[in-house]
């Protein structure tokens, strides 16, 4: 294909990504080092009262000719980065205005919001990963062993957690675990009484349980497809050589599935870093936040797009660092392929 026609074909797609992904990212950097505020002016208000004239001084927003408030924008450098990272604690504003509903992570002191969010995001990512791979692999092995006519139905039913709207899934889990819900009732029979949404550890546990539940079907289906292509002659040779069930699994099946395990890991890293809905639904940011939730919260609750931009830039730096191995791998592969 000629370069000219290539450019024509990819044109619309590239234009859309430039306009709505690349440009906003650049703008985010720009916004993160700025601050705008309404220009205020002092006005004298004269009131005629029966006791003579009274003058009061009040502040109000200065309006321009068309009646809009005048915004003064200035360069503030890394001020908001310091605030989000909690570096200069003195000048950091106290945990947001009180009307933010106290929803800023209570476990973390004002200031180190980002590290608090990052810590939980990492915890979530790396705790869910082994469970997703492990349970997915066990399910794949199990389904591989059942009779053919059960497989279709089982795979259909298994897909449910993966394709369901995340916010709906998180709500459903919340309703299952809330007071007077089904799960606390069942658990009370075995002597476990926990108010799941009322403590940091249990709320975090719920988010992690949600994460595992949501992603296991993906790992299961990918690994199940991989199992279909395990070389049968290698398995037979191993049987003849007297390998046990476990040894065949360990030395024939697993190495064959390794590329798929890497693939699932990389996809999961990307998606887990974005964890948002369960954090939003299950704790509303109390006890725990994630990096994506932090930006959303600062933007919509604190209504501060500049501070939110600083949080967004830090979030982006985080994902780039996390993805370096993936990028290097894909780079090498594609270089070989092209």
């Amino acid at each position, binding site marked *: *294909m000629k*370069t000219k*026609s*290539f450019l024509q074909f*990819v044109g*619309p*797609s*590239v234009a*859309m*990504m430039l*306009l*709505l*992904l690349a440009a*906003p990212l650049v*703008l985010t950097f720009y916004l993160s080092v700025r601050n705008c505020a309404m220009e205020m002016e002092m006005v004298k208000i004269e009131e005629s009262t029966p006791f003579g004239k009274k003058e009061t001084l009040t502040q109000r927003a200065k309006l321009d000719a068309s009646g809009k408030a005048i915004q003064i924008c200035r360069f503030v450098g890394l001020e908001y980065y310091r605030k989000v990272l909690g570096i200069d604690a003195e000048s950091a504003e106290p945990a947001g205005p009180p009307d933010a509903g106290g929803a800023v992570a209570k476990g973390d002191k004002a200031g180190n919001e980002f590290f608090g969010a990052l810590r939980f995001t990492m915890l979530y990512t790396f705790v869910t990963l082994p469970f997703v791979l492990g349970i997915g692999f*066990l*399910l794949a092995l*199990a*389904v591989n*062993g059942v009779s053919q006519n059960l497989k279709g139905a*089982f*795979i*259909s*039913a298994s897909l*449910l*957690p993966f*394709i*369901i*709207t*995340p*916010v*709906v899934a998180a*709500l*459903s*889990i919340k*309703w299952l675990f809330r*007071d*007077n819900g089904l799960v606390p009732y069942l658990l009370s029979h075995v002597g476990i009484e926990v108010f799941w949404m009322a403590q940091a550890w249990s709320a975090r546990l719920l988010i992690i349980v949600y994460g595992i*539940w949501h992603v296991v079907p993906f790992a299961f289906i990918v690994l199940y*497809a991989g199992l279909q292509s395990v070389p049968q002659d290698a398995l037979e040779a191993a*049987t003849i050589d007297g390998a046990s069930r476990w040894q065949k699994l360990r030395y024939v099946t697993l190495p064959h599935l390794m590329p*798929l395990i890497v*693939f699932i890991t990389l996809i999961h890293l990307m998606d887990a*870093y*974005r964890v*948002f*809905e369960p954090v939003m*639904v299950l704790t509303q940011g109390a006890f725990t936040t994630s990096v*994506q939730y932090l*930006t*959303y919260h600062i933007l919509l609750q604190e209504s501060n797009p500049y501070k*939110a931009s600083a949080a*967004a830039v830090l979030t982006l730096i985080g*994902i*780039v660092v996390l*993805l370096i191995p993936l*990028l290097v791998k*894909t780079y090498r592969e594609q*270089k070989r392929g*092209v």
Partner: protein
Amino acid sequence: MKKRPFSLSVLLYGGLLFWLVIASLPVVWTAIISFRQYLDAFSSPVKWVAPFTTENYTRLWIEKEFYRNFLNTALVTVFTVTISLTVGCLAAYALSRYRGSLGFWLLMVALMFRAIPHSSLLPSFFTLFDALGIRNTYFTLIFVLVAINQPFTIWMLRSFFINIPNELDEAALVDGCTRFQAFRRVIIPVMWPGVVTTGLFSFLLAYNDFLLSSALTSGDKMTMPAAIANSITAESETLLMQGVAGAVSITIPLIILVVIFQKQIVGGLTQGAVKG
């Protein structure tokens, strides 16, 4: 293969059954309590059987006009999928046929974009769309969703197009077709399986999106997931039960989708993987 010992069989079927229960429990239980009054839905001890009522649904769909949110979602997803696939097919076809390094770099950049946390884009979106006065319009949400889906769409479609033999369109070129004619007459007729699968995932991404939809729409423009956000903090009992009914309403189309398109979804999930 050797016959399985009995104990392993029990473990196997027991394990699968256990997973099925876990996988479906949140959805099934939500569906059950959606047909109950609040006091029957959340009670101690839990009621296994309770009077049946469709009140939550009538309240939600008629009084709260949830059908509007349903129509909004339908509109946004239909346009998002259509535009995503049209734009994506062109780009993916070119990426599967072009040999230069430009294509490789485009794919790498798209991969980076695939990983962006969506909330990182929101401060810019707010600033831009407010300045242009186009926040809270269907148009804006559709194009944002298309752009967000584009990296994934072109990667997936490309993996399908690569499997369509080069000879097919080369022959058309030799016969005097332009690139675009070759694409339209030769490739389009044979690309449908890949397009259907990619379309399904494109649909899921648009339909399931909560973060962008809830931030960019409000009032009568809200999609279903955005509208249900009210029930996250719902204190009132009727509001909460409407949320439950809403959750079920959102899920039903997805269940129908899985039943019809199970093969394509499974195929799509493994598409990228088997190559990896």
